[in-house]
């Protein structure tokens, strides 16, 4: 592993995004626009709905977006031949994956920062806990998205397939994660299933920040699971990268 190569890769990923103004604008603005839409839908009749799910959504956008961006970016790296070239150079697998995680992690920080600010200040999201905690959860979710995207891209041959992984990998986690119905109220089998899906812990953490002002042990555990799974998936992602291909 080399810090020079890792940081160069993070910088390169960010530079690629900087040249793509439209993607950058979408990345930074869309979560806030959707939050505003949600606020507007419920504002007159039942503002407590926005307070209930606002924090969860703030954390889910970075996950979703980073999953998509990463899986497509890595797939492109494979199909354009740049991955093959990098692997003939002094590029470690960990350098590449960490470079991506750092680059996209910084974008996620910016994206979540804007979303939290917009939700808490103009839209008046009612949070019992600290908005900073919400930011930490959002970045953890984004890293989970990056790691899952890197991992899944190994199983996709085309960008079209990569996009199709979203409904397969992301939506079930979303449905089972306690967003629609608290997890303990779901049928027992589904509750057990949700226990092994990492996004459930991210949603639990966001709910805790919505409901309680303190830093509870449970919140620490939830955050630990999200970060832990993200790191484990990065490791698995490294195992799917091959210097030699058939």
């Amino acid at each position: 592993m080399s810090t020079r190569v890792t940081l160069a890769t993070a910088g390169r990923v960010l530079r690629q995004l900087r040249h793509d103004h439209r993607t950058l604008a979408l990345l930074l603005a869309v979560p806030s626009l959707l939050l505003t839409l949600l606020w507007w839908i419920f504002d007159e009749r039942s503002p407590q709905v926005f307070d209930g799910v606002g924090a969860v959504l703030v954390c889910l956008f970075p996950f979703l977006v980073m999953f998509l961006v990463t899986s497509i970016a890595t797939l492109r790296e494979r199909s354009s031949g740049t991955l093959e070239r990098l692997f003939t150079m002094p590029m470690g697998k960990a350098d590449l994956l960490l470079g991506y995680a750092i680059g996209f992690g910084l974008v996620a920080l910016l994206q979540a920062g804007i979303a939290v600010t917009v939700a808490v200040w103009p839209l008046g999201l009612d949070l019992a806990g600290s908005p900073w905690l919400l930011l930490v959860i959002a970045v953890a979710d984004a890293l989970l998205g990056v790691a899952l995207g890197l991992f899944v891209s190994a199983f996709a041959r085309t960008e079209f397939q990569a996009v199709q992984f979203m409904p397969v990998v992301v939506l079930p986690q979303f449905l089972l994660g306690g967003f629609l119905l608290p997890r303990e109220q779901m049928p027992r089998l589904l509750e057990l299933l949700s226990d092994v899906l990492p996004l459930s812990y991210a949603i639990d953490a966001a709910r805790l920040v919505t409901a309680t002002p303190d830093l509870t042990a449970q919140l620490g555990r939830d955050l630990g699971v999200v970060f832990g799974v993200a790191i484990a998936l990065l490791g698995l992602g490294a195992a799917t990268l091959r210097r030699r291909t058939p």
Partner: protein
Amino acid sequence: MANNVVVQVRGLRVVRGGAVVLPDLTLEVRAGGVTGLLGPSGSGKSTLIRSIVGVQVVDSGTVQVLGRPAGDARLRTRVGYVTQSPSVYADLTVRENLAYFAAVLGAPRSHVDRVMHEVALESQARVLVGRLSGGQRSRVSLAAALLGSPELLVLDEPTVGLDPVLRRDLWDQFHRLAARGVGVLVSSHVMDEASRCDRLLLLREGRLLADDEPAALLARTGGRDVEHAFLRLCDETEVAA
């Protein structure tokens, strides 16, 4: 290396997608001149080149590069590789691409300007690679392989589709590098390029038809040019079989 052998391939067998691409290949590449790897499309040139740079899964046989097994970590700053289709980032400028690859290689930043000059792309330094023509894009890809100080350059069809003047300049550049002692292996499916090589490896259906100097090859086969020599050799092997 005393005998200046930079690549040594012995009994190389490669199967891709269930088909035997290289059945049993043995050959050597020496420094001190430009070696041309010539053969029609599909003859296995890229597969051999990928085996030499250590990105191809091989079934059996050995490939030694600069005295080490192909793909060895210590070779990664010593071998420059150009993939057949340009492998550069379309959403970065020419300079940003080269600066990134220089950082990965640990090559000095000054090399970025040097290689842009060598492929005549200084005026496009700030242009996004995605906006360049195909030929310009392959020059960026070639420039990236010239970063650092590779002892062996492995170039997969680097001059296809380029302007004749630029093509001549690049071949001159390959010869200058070779004269400095860099091993240079260039593949092409265009038989005309054979005349620019100091040594030829002719490949057909994964088998080595000839390993000779161009003049000696023509004398031996009595062909007018390398294309004719290639045809003669094909006929001979068919009669023998």
